[in-house]
């Protein structure tokens, strides 16, 4: 029998919620470890190995010391998967990119002398693929547990994971929700990548765009939806600050 792929999980600047989503698979983790070997996962295990095939990386990159660690991980891994919004696109960590690092540091640490202290040596937030090449992306804030399972299963089987390229509206309609625009909210569903089962609108809350923007945004049907509520494409793009600061479109679809 072929050897099980060895998987390691790593985290950088984030809330560790996506890793927690893995733990939240509950007994289904046991299914997962029947076809992969988890050899490093600091949040839940003491054992660690530098010999792995697949690295799952969560979080954004903030400092030179983090870049160095990430390059080390990349050099060990055959396949690197970016996990969650912070890793795939910078996520909420990029909100601060509208200011220079020196400015936020001063804002937060006052006049403290932090020169030469590498712990505080931050640059503007980077997503994982701004530092090293990424092979696969698992989107969301947090990630969807079912999607995680299906992506890992596909990769372990040597197949290409199936990630939606259509907008959240498709899943939202399938759930028979009343449109958030109809309820007076401003929703990013029309231009955000689906795959979350439209979870936010389904709980009566507008989409915040945590899975990134789809490639074809400026389409007639998006304009039509917006026109109905007297909004422009520029209006919806201006709302994309929580997760998509500084991003034009999602560059992952070939």
């Amino acid at each position, binding site marked *: 029998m072929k050897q099980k792929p060895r998987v390691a999980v790593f985290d950088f600047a984030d809330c560790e919620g996506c890793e927690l989503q893995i733990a939240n698979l509950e007994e289904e983790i046991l299914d997962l470890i029947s076809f992969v070997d988890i050899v490093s996962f600091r949040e839940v295990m003491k054992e660690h190995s530098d010999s792995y095939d697949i690295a799952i990386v969560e979080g954004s990159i903030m400092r030179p010391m983090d870049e160095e660690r990430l390059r080390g991980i990349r050099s060990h891994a055959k396949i690197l998967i970016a996990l969650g919004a912070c890793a795939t696109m910078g996520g909420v960590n990029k909100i601060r990119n509208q200011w220079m690092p020196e400015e936020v*540091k001063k804002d937060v640490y006052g006049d403290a002398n932090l020169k030469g202290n590498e712990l505080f040596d931050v640059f503007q937030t980077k997503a994982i693929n701004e530092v090293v090449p990424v092979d696969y992306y698992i989107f969301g804030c947090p990630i969807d547990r079912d999607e995680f399972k299906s992506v890992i299963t596909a990769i372990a089987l040597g197949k290409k994971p199936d990630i939606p390229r259509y907008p959240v509206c498709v899943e939202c309609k399938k759930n028979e929700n009343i449109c958030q625009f109809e309820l007076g909210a401003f929703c990013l569903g029309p231009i955000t990548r689906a795959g979350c089962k439209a979870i936010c609108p389904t709980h009566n809350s507008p989409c915040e765009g945590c899975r990134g923007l789809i490639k074809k945004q400026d389409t007639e049907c998006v304009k039509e939806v917006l026109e109905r509520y007297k909004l422009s494409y520029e209006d919806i793009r201006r709302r994309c600050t929580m997760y998509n600061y500084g991003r034009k479109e999602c560059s992952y679809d070939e």
Partner: protein
Amino acid sequence: MSKDFSVHVEHITRVEGHGNIVLDVKNGKIEKLQWNVVEAPRFFEAMLRGQQYNELRPITSRICGICSIGHSLASLKATEDAFDIKITKQTAILRRLAIHAENMQSHILHIGYLVAPDLFGVGSVFPLVGKHTDTVMKIVKLHRLANEMSDLICGRTIHPIRLIVGGFSLVPTERQLLHLKNRLAEAQDLTKELAVVIQSVADKLPTFTRETEYIGLTSDSEYALYDGVIASTDTGKHPAYRDYKEVINEYIVPQSTAKYAKHARESYMVGALARFNLNSTQLHPVAQEVAHMFRLKPLTYNPFMNTIAQLVEFSHSIEDSLLLINSLLDQGIKQEKPVKPVVKAGRGVGIVEVPRGILVHDYTLNSKGYCTKANCIIPTNQNHANIQLDMEKLVPEILTKSQKEIELTLEMLVRAYDPCISCSTHYLDVIFV
């Protein structure tokens, strides 16, 4: 005994976030002993500036995956305080259920997945699956229940959706609540069975004590989690909640990207043990029984017993949730609209107890409802100094043990606090010492 050795734990495992333990011993003398937080700072308070009041809750939820419900509630309470919003009775009950669900989820994760491997002498929960299948399945079942309860009340267990300014975007149905009630009742028996298992290995918890101060919320009407006033085991109640800085004095140390805090002494502790030490008489009877099993009494000065206090609280949360659900069912659950805010300039402070201790969000909003200043005080920050001082008392007491045992005991000490390090790395209004 003269000996030279070092314990350098880089990125301690089975805790949330990145921390290091450094111990250098020369000729039997401690040359260096440090608890270091090396997590990358995230600047949340800076990111909140300029955000509209509705955005503060979803953004601050992302401070922490484990206590996202707690951050959400502290955030909503701060915003509602600034706008003088009075939430409905139903919202107050549902929010209490939300906090119980999170407390249960976080506590069982810590007890079962992060601490239990030490008590059974293994590196993670995975080797226990084969050897202690029954116990692992109990833990998994309780963890699943807590998560599904969060899903039901909040829409999602990590980064809740339904919690919004003024109330809920959607509430559970009567049928869903009845179903939850039945499952919670079953879970109480499972919890007692799990307590028996933990009791059988509890001798692995070190018998270390160091007198310190304990700080948490307290309330006349209940074991305080969602609401209450700040209280200390040294100085009693501090009712002026907006003046929380009189109690929580934060400062910075160079070896840590997280702030430290002190009050009456050089350090204090927050979290389950602090709450137990302050409010144990208000625990429900089943939780009292669990405490009795472990001879846990106030004031307990052994930080390793924090895990046991979590188990006690887990049982309390089940019992209290059952009562809360009953009162919701009695009054009838309604899909009520959130209270509409009257936007105005002002400052608001929200304080809640989250799994790891007392959490403060403090916002200043302008007349259009945009945030101009924010401060978040995280439980784990308040524990860092206490961890350091515990280590300084603990290491000389165990210096004759093997290096491996010393390393494990130090790791267990950090784990006992259940630190949430990614949470703890952001600051504002820094006072340097």
